[in-house]
């Protein structure tokens, strides 16, 4: 492919990917309540957004669920990976098969399968209702497999001799685990935790079926906004989210390039 053709092609793909986002950003500053005509610049929709207590509350709900589910999934998943790594091949594949079910299954199937369980449980015990707890359990469930999938390769790539050496030198197993194994698999744990957090923050389908009516996360609120008559508040919200993600990604990217540069420097000296 010639250089120009390549450039044109990349440009078109990026234009396609960013066109709707650009439209949202532009119309978030619209002076009038229209999604086709643009008239005058205004910040009124941002003001309206910050006065909407439902949106703010569901945003904080989303953060709480994402943080808690990521934390719990990371702990359960990391310990599971340690155990799975030591298993014989056949047992390990059985575990990994089950681990892959929520990853491979369509979200809607995972969602309704858990919903049936929760509804069944609620109708039998007559004690709980769908809400915070069912949502948290559902999020932990779809997060755990991703933690396992991120930690396991790090365990397999690890040099077991160092752990054995620590044991030989009289370090108790639990202490050796925290001092020797954990630091080596940390990158996998961190990636898994971040992935779990973002997946949970972004999830709509599983939350939609398992949240009941009392507890709403941000994507559920956005969904109910799309059902109501058009409000440019949704554009303002999207723009803010986009800027937030953009800044976050830039920071991560800068840090990565910096550490890469530092590494290069170290190698040179």
């Amino acid at each position, binding site marked *: 492919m010639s250089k120009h053709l390549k450039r044109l092609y990349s440009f078109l793909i990026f234009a396609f990917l960013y066109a709707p986002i650009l439209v949202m950003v532009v119309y978030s500053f619209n002076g009038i309540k229209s999604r086709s005509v643009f008239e005058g610049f205004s910040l009124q929709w941002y003001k309206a957004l910050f006065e909407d207590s439902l949106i703010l509350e569901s945003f904080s709900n989303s953060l709480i669920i994402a943080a808690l589910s990521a934390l719990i999934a990371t702990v359960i998943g990391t310990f599971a990976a340690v155990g799975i790594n030591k298993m014989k091949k056949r047992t390990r594949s059985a575990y990994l098969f089950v681990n892959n079910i929520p990853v491979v299954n369509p979200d809607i199937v995972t969602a309704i399968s858990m919903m049936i369980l929760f509804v069944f449980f609620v109708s039998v015990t007559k004690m709980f209702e769908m809400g915070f707890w069912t949502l948290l359990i559902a999020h932990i469930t779809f997060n*755990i497999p991703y933690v396992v999938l991120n930690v396991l390769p790090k365990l397999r790539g690890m040099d077991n001799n160092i752990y054995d050496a620590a044991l030989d030198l009289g370090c108790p*197993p639990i202490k050796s685990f925290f001092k020797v194994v954990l630091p080596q698999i940390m990158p996998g744990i961190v990636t898994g935790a971040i992935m779990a957090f973002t997946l949970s923050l972004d999830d709509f389908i599983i939350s939609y079926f398992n949240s009941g009516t009392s507890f709403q996360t941000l994507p559920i609120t956005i969904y109910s906004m799309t059902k109501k008559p058009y409000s440019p508040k949704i554009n303002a919200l999207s723009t803010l989210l986009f800027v937030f993600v953009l800044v976050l990604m830039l920071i991560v990217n800068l840090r990565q390039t910096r550490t890469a540069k530092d590494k290069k420097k170290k190698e040179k000296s």
Partner: protein
Amino acid sequence: MMKTKKPFFSAKNLTVTPYAVWMVLFVLIPIGLVVYFAFTDANGTFTLENLSYIKRYAETFWLSVELALISTVICLLLAYPMAFIIAKMPTERQGSAILLIMLPMWMNFLIRTYAWMTILENNGIINRFVGMIAQWLQIEFEGFSMINTNGAIVLGMVYNYLPYMILPIYTVLTKIDNSLIEAARDLGSSSVHVFRRIIAPLSVPGVISGITMVFVPAVSTFIISYLLGGGKTYLIGNIIENYFLGSSGAINYNVGAALSLLLMILIVVSMGIMNHFDKDSESVGGGMIV
């Protein structure tokens, strides 16, 4: 002779126990419940009625498969060249390019799909823009009807899932050993030949995980068809949703479970077909973790 029994709770087991309990409770039992509900009626007695009842959705089912397949093919055709271009960029620019591909994925997909409504509507941006040009040229223009068509649904699917196709293909392309390509070149292969005999076969695992990552969410979506298809087009996902969260008269977990079971079987079958093409790769979705 006495056998030395392994203690049930060895340290190894102990670390997996919470996980095993969790997965049984919230993954295996729910799947079992789906199967149970699919084969029973409201009173819990065994029946095959749900399975025969869902025959009426055959047309919807095939429409979902058809739209998802079309979207998957378009994604593949668009994504492969893009992944190839990025993989051939200088290393320091590859990171930024991948970042740009991933950035829209981090916006909630409801918002992104909703934005397309603004663009495609009868009174939307495209129609107004073309209308302005038509007025300027003094041609009569009645406007395209784009929203609420199957085309709009395919567009929404391609838009939402294109990055899922680009990323795994890019990952496998960067892993191809350059010396293989150089060796082929040295031995007189043309670019087309190098692509056909080396690059294409070696990128199969990425293509396979891309296809699964696009097809599975596309075939089971209910949001894209709801937002861009209007009330007109119902896909299998919409029907399942309606059986679980629709108006109180419409709710029927048993039929909904039967449809979900069918969807699961479809996914398992298509994964089986996919794995047939890709015997070497160890796990499904291997290219997923970037």
